[in-house]
Protein backbone atom coordinates (compact mmCIF):
# COMPACT_ATOMS: atom_id res chain seq x y z
CA UNK A 1 0.00 0.00 0.00
CA UNK A 2 1.22 3.52 -0.78
CA UNK A 3 0.14 4.95 2.59
CA UNK A 4 2.88 4.43 5.15
CA UNK A 5 2.21 4.66 8.87
CA UNK A 6 5.06 6.25 10.79
CA UNK A 7 3.47 5.84 14.20
CA UNK A 8 6.50 3.98 15.55
CA UNK A 9 8.65 6.99 14.74
CA UNK A 10 6.38 9.36 16.66
CA UNK A 11 6.12 6.97 19.58
CA UNK A 12 9.91 6.84 19.77
CA UNK A 13 10.14 10.65 19.55
CA UNK A 14 7.64 11.16 22.30
CA UNK A 15 8.97 8.20 24.29
CA UNK A 16 5.55 6.65 24.69
CA UNK A 17 4.93 2.94 24.61
CA UNK A 18 2.29 1.35 22.37
CA UNK A 19 0.50 0.02 25.41
CA UNK A 20 0.22 3.49 26.94
CA UNK A 21 -0.97 5.02 23.69
CA UNK A 22 -3.61 2.29 23.35
CA UNK A 23 -4.85 2.93 26.85
CA UNK A 24 -5.04 6.67 26.32
CA UNK A 25 -6.90 6.54 23.02
CA UNK A 26 -9.15 3.61 23.97
CA UNK A 27 -8.25 0.95 21.45
CA UNK A 28 -6.69 -2.48 21.96
CA UNK A 29 -2.90 -2.62 22.12
CA UNK A 30 -2.96 -5.21 19.36
CA UNK A 31 -4.74 -2.73 17.11
CA UNK A 32 -2.02 -0.15 17.81
CA UNK A 33 0.59 -2.74 16.84
CA UNK A 34 -1.28 -3.52 13.65
CA UNK A 35 -1.59 0.19 12.92
CA UNK A 36 2.15 0.66 13.43
CA UNK A 37 2.89 -2.15 11.02
CA UNK A 38 0.40 -0.83 8.49
CA UNK A 39 -1.71 -3.96 8.55
CA UNK A 40 -5.00 -2.10 8.73
CA UNK A 41 -7.31 -0.97 5.97
CA UNK A 42 -7.99 2.45 7.41
CA UNK A 43 -8.11 4.69 10.40
CA UNK A 44 -11.08 6.62 11.69
CA UNK A 45 -10.78 10.38 12.06
CA UNK A 46 -11.57 10.23 15.76
CA UNK A 47 -8.81 7.68 16.29
CA UNK A 48 -6.40 9.86 14.33
CA UNK A 49 -7.51 12.89 16.32
CA UNK A 50 -6.83 11.10 19.61
CA UNK A 51 -3.42 9.91 18.44
CA UNK A 52 -2.44 13.43 17.38
CA UNK A 53 -3.68 14.81 20.69
CA UNK A 54 -1.69 12.30 22.74
CA UNK A 55 1.47 12.54 20.62
CA UNK A 56 1.13 16.28 20.03
CA UNK A 57 1.65 15.96 16.32
CA UNK A 58 -0.03 16.41 12.95
CA UNK A 59 -1.63 13.67 10.85
CA UNK A 60 1.15 14.15 8.34
CA UNK A 61 3.67 13.16 11.01
CA UNK A 62 2.01 9.78 11.26
CA UNK A 63 0.80 9.16 7.71
CA UNK A 64 2.97 9.40 4.64
CA UNK A 65 2.12 8.86 1.01
CA UNK A 66 4.88 6.98 -0.74
CA UNK A 67 4.27 5.86 -4.32
CA UNK A 68 5.67 2.47 -5.24
CA UNK A 69 9.45 2.55 -5.67
CA UNK A 70 10.18 5.77 -3.76
CA UNK A 71 12.20 5.81 -0.48
CA UNK A 72 10.97 7.55 2.64
CA UNK A 73 11.66 11.24 3.27
CA UNK A 74 10.72 11.16 6.95
CA UNK A 75 12.37 8.15 8.60
CA UNK A 76 14.38 9.96 11.24
CA UNK A 77 14.36 9.42 14.95
CA UNK A 78 15.50 12.31 17.09
Amino acid at each position, binding site marked *: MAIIVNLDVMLAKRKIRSRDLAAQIG*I*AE*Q*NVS*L*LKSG*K*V*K*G*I*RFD*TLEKICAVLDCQPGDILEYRPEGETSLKRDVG
Partner: protein
Amino acid sequence: MTDVASPGIQAPANNPRLAILRAKIGWICHAIRIAVMLWLGWVLVRIIMSWYDRPTLEQNFFKFFDVDLSSLSQARYALALALSLLVWTCAAALGWFIWRLFGGYLSGRIFTVDAAMRMQAAAIAGFVATFAEVGLRPLYYLTLMGHLPGKLQWYAYVQPNDLLHILLASFIFALATIFKTAAEIADDHSQIV
Protein backbone atom coordinates in the same frame (compact mmCIF):
# COMPACT_ATOMS: atom_id res chain seq x y z
CA MET B 1 -21.90 -4.84 14.86
CA THR B 2 -18.88 -6.96 14.13
CA ASP B 3 -17.40 -9.42 16.52
CA VAL B 4 -13.92 -10.58 15.70
CA ALA B 5 -14.08 -11.53 12.05
CA SER B 6 -10.46 -10.82 11.21
CA PRO B 7 -7.95 -12.93 13.09
CA GLY B 8 -5.72 -9.94 13.74
CA ILE B 9 -8.10 -7.19 14.77
CA GLN B 10 -9.54 -7.19 18.26
CA ALA B 11 -13.08 -6.04 18.92
CA PRO B 12 -13.46 -3.50 21.70
CA ALA B 13 -13.27 -5.10 25.14
CA ASN B 14 -16.77 -3.87 25.98
CA ASN B 15 -19.06 -4.95 23.13
CA PRO B 16 -22.44 -4.52 24.83
CA ARG B 17 -24.57 -5.09 21.75
CA LEU B 18 -23.04 -8.47 21.16
CA ALA B 19 -23.43 -9.40 24.83
CA ILE B 20 -27.09 -8.32 24.75
CA LEU B 21 -27.70 -10.32 21.59
CA ARG B 22 -26.11 -13.41 23.07
CA ALA B 23 -28.29 -13.04 26.16
CA LYS B 24 -31.39 -12.72 23.97
CA ILE B 25 -30.73 -15.70 21.73
CA GLY B 26 -29.06 -17.97 24.26
CA TRP B 27 -32.24 -19.73 25.27
CA ILE B 28 -33.34 -20.05 21.63
CA CYS B 29 -30.04 -21.67 20.69
CA HIS B 30 -30.24 -24.13 23.56
CA ALA B 31 -33.90 -24.88 22.77
CA ILE B 32 -33.15 -25.56 19.11
CA ARG B 33 -30.25 -27.86 19.95
CA ILE B 34 -32.40 -29.80 22.40
CA ALA B 35 -35.31 -29.93 19.94
CA VAL B 36 -33.08 -31.30 17.20
CA MET B 37 -31.77 -34.04 19.46
CA LEU B 38 -35.27 -34.88 20.67
CA TRP B 39 -36.56 -35.02 17.09
CA LEU B 40 -33.76 -37.35 15.99
CA GLY B 41 -34.20 -39.55 19.02
CA TRP B 42 -37.95 -39.65 18.53
CA VAL B 43 -37.66 -40.66 14.89
CA LEU B 44 -35.07 -43.32 15.68
CA VAL B 45 -37.19 -44.81 18.44
CA ARG B 46 -40.19 -44.86 16.08
CA ILE B 47 -38.17 -46.65 13.41
CA ILE B 48 -36.87 -49.23 15.84
CA MET B 49 -40.24 -49.79 17.49
CA SER B 50 -42.03 -50.09 14.15
CA TRP B 51 -39.59 -52.54 12.63
CA TYR B 52 -38.95 -54.53 15.79
CA ASP B 53 -42.54 -55.73 15.81
CA ARG B 54 -43.19 -57.21 12.38
CA PRO B 55 -46.78 -58.34 13.01
CA THR B 56 -47.77 -54.83 14.08
CA LEU B 57 -45.97 -53.34 11.09
CA GLU B 58 -47.87 -55.66 8.73
CA GLN B 59 -51.10 -54.80 10.49
CA ASN B 60 -50.46 -51.06 10.10
CA PHE B 61 -49.55 -51.38 6.43
CA PHE B 62 -52.77 -53.27 5.83
CA LYS B 63 -54.79 -50.76 7.82
CA PHE B 64 -53.34 -47.56 6.30
CA PHE B 65 -52.26 -48.65 2.80
CA ASP B 66 -54.40 -51.70 2.19
CA VAL B 67 -51.21 -53.66 1.62
CA ASP B 68 -50.57 -57.21 2.80
CA LEU B 69 -46.90 -57.63 3.70
CA SER B 70 -47.15 -61.14 5.09
CA SER B 71 -45.40 -62.56 2.02
CA LEU B 72 -42.50 -60.12 2.38
CA SER B 73 -39.19 -61.98 2.58
CA GLN B 74 -36.85 -61.41 5.52
CA ALA B 75 -34.21 -60.04 3.18
CA ARG B 76 -36.58 -57.41 1.83
CA TYR B 77 -37.70 -56.63 5.36
CA ALA B 78 -34.10 -56.07 6.41
CA LEU B 79 -33.38 -53.96 3.31
CA ALA B 80 -36.38 -51.72 3.97
CA LEU B 81 -35.20 -51.25 7.56
CA ALA B 82 -31.70 -50.42 6.33
CA LEU B 83 -33.12 -47.82 3.93
CA SER B 84 -35.09 -46.25 6.78
CA LEU B 85 -31.96 -46.05 8.87
CA LEU B 86 -30.00 -44.61 5.95
CA VAL B 87 -32.50 -41.79 5.58
CA TRP B 88 -32.37 -41.27 9.34
CA THR B 89 -28.57 -41.04 9.13
CA CYS B 90 -28.86 -38.20 6.61
CA ALA B 91 -31.28 -36.47 8.98
CA ALA B 92 -28.82 -37.04 11.83
CA ALA B 93 -26.10 -35.36 9.79
CA LEU B 94 -28.39 -32.39 9.34
CA GLY B 95 -29.00 -32.41 13.10
CA TRP B 96 -25.25 -32.33 13.72
CA PHE B 97 -24.79 -29.33 11.43
CA ILE B 98 -27.63 -27.51 13.22
CA TRP B 99 -26.08 -28.40 16.60
CA ARG B 100 -22.75 -27.05 15.45
CA LEU B 101 -24.25 -23.84 14.05
CA PHE B 102 -26.08 -22.92 17.23
CA GLY B 103 -23.14 -24.00 19.34
CA GLY B 104 -21.12 -21.43 17.48
CA TYR B 105 -23.74 -18.78 18.20
CA LEU B 106 -23.61 -19.66 21.89
CA SER B 107 -19.85 -19.19 21.93
CA GLY B 108 -20.17 -15.75 20.35
CA ARG B 109 -19.41 -16.55 16.71
CA ILE B 110 -22.46 -14.82 15.31
CA PHE B 111 -21.54 -12.22 12.72
CA THR B 112 -18.52 -14.03 11.34
CA VAL B 113 -17.81 -15.53 7.98
CA ASP B 114 -17.38 -18.97 9.49
CA ALA B 115 -20.80 -18.72 11.18
CA ALA B 116 -22.35 -17.94 7.80
CA MET B 117 -20.50 -20.88 6.28
CA ARG B 118 -21.82 -23.15 9.02
CA MET B 119 -25.32 -22.00 8.13
CA GLN B 120 -24.61 -22.78 4.48
CA ALA B 121 -23.35 -26.22 5.50
CA ALA B 122 -26.56 -26.82 7.45
CA ALA B 123 -28.62 -25.82 4.42
CA ILE B 124 -26.64 -28.17 2.19
CA ALA B 125 -27.14 -30.94 4.75
CA GLY B 126 -30.85 -30.17 4.52
CA PHE B 127 -30.75 -30.58 0.75
CA VAL B 128 -28.87 -33.87 1.10
CA ALA B 129 -31.32 -35.21 3.67
CA THR B 130 -34.30 -34.22 1.54
CA PHE B 131 -32.91 -35.63 -1.69
CA ALA B 132 -31.87 -38.80 0.12
CA GLU B 133 -35.40 -39.29 1.34
CA VAL B 134 -36.95 -38.46 -2.01
CA GLY B 135 -34.44 -40.63 -3.83
CA LEU B 136 -34.67 -43.62 -1.52
CA ARG B 137 -38.40 -43.52 -0.98
CA PRO B 138 -39.30 -45.31 -4.24
CA LEU B 139 -36.69 -47.95 -3.49
CA TYR B 140 -38.11 -48.32 0.01
CA TYR B 141 -41.66 -48.84 -1.21
CA LEU B 142 -40.47 -51.00 -4.07
CA THR B 143 -38.68 -53.20 -1.52
CA LEU B 144 -41.83 -53.50 0.55
CA MET B 145 -44.43 -53.75 -2.18
CA GLY B 146 -42.56 -54.59 -5.37
CA HIS B 147 -43.72 -58.18 -5.15
CA LEU B 148 -47.36 -57.01 -4.94
CA PRO B 149 -48.47 -55.89 -8.38
CA GLY B 150 -50.38 -52.62 -8.63
CA LYS B 151 -49.82 -51.55 -5.05
CA LEU B 152 -47.25 -48.76 -5.51
CA GLN B 153 -48.97 -45.37 -5.29
CA TRP B 154 -47.89 -41.78 -5.89
CA TYR B 155 -46.82 -41.37 -2.27
CA ALA B 156 -43.97 -43.74 -3.00
CA TYR B 157 -42.37 -41.14 -5.24
CA VAL B 158 -43.11 -37.63 -4.04
CA GLN B 159 -44.97 -36.00 -1.18
CA PRO B 160 -45.97 -32.37 -0.60
CA ASN B 161 -43.61 -32.01 2.36
CA ASP B 162 -40.67 -32.71 0.05
CA LEU B 163 -41.21 -29.36 -1.62
CA LEU B 164 -41.53 -27.69 1.78
CA HIS B 165 -38.21 -29.17 2.90
CA ILE B 166 -36.49 -28.02 -0.29
CA LEU B 167 -37.98 -24.54 0.14
CA LEU B 168 -36.72 -24.36 3.72
CA ALA B 169 -33.24 -25.52 2.77
CA SER B 170 -33.16 -23.03 -0.11
CA PHE B 171 -34.28 -20.24 2.21
CA ILE B 172 -31.57 -21.04 4.74
CA PHE B 173 -28.94 -21.29 2.01
CA ALA B 174 -29.90 -17.92 0.56
CA LEU B 175 -29.88 -16.34 4.01
CA ALA B 176 -26.47 -17.83 4.75
CA THR B 177 -25.08 -16.44 1.50
CA ILE B 178 -26.37 -12.99 2.43
CA PHE B 179 -24.90 -13.31 5.93
CA LYS B 180 -21.56 -14.38 4.52
CA THR B 181 -21.33 -11.30 2.34
CA ALA B 182 -22.39 -9.13 5.27
CA ALA B 183 -19.74 -10.75 7.47
CA GLU B 184 -17.08 -10.15 4.82
CA ILE B 185 -18.08 -6.48 4.59
CA ALA B 186 -18.02 -6.27 8.38
CA ASP B 187 -14.62 -7.94 8.37
CA ASP B 188 -13.33 -5.23 6.05
CA HIS B 189 -14.77 -2.55 8.31
CA SER B 190 -13.24 -4.15 11.38
CA GLN B 191 -9.83 -3.55 9.85
CA ILE B 192 -10.43 0.16 10.18
CA VAL B 193 -9.16 1.20 13.62
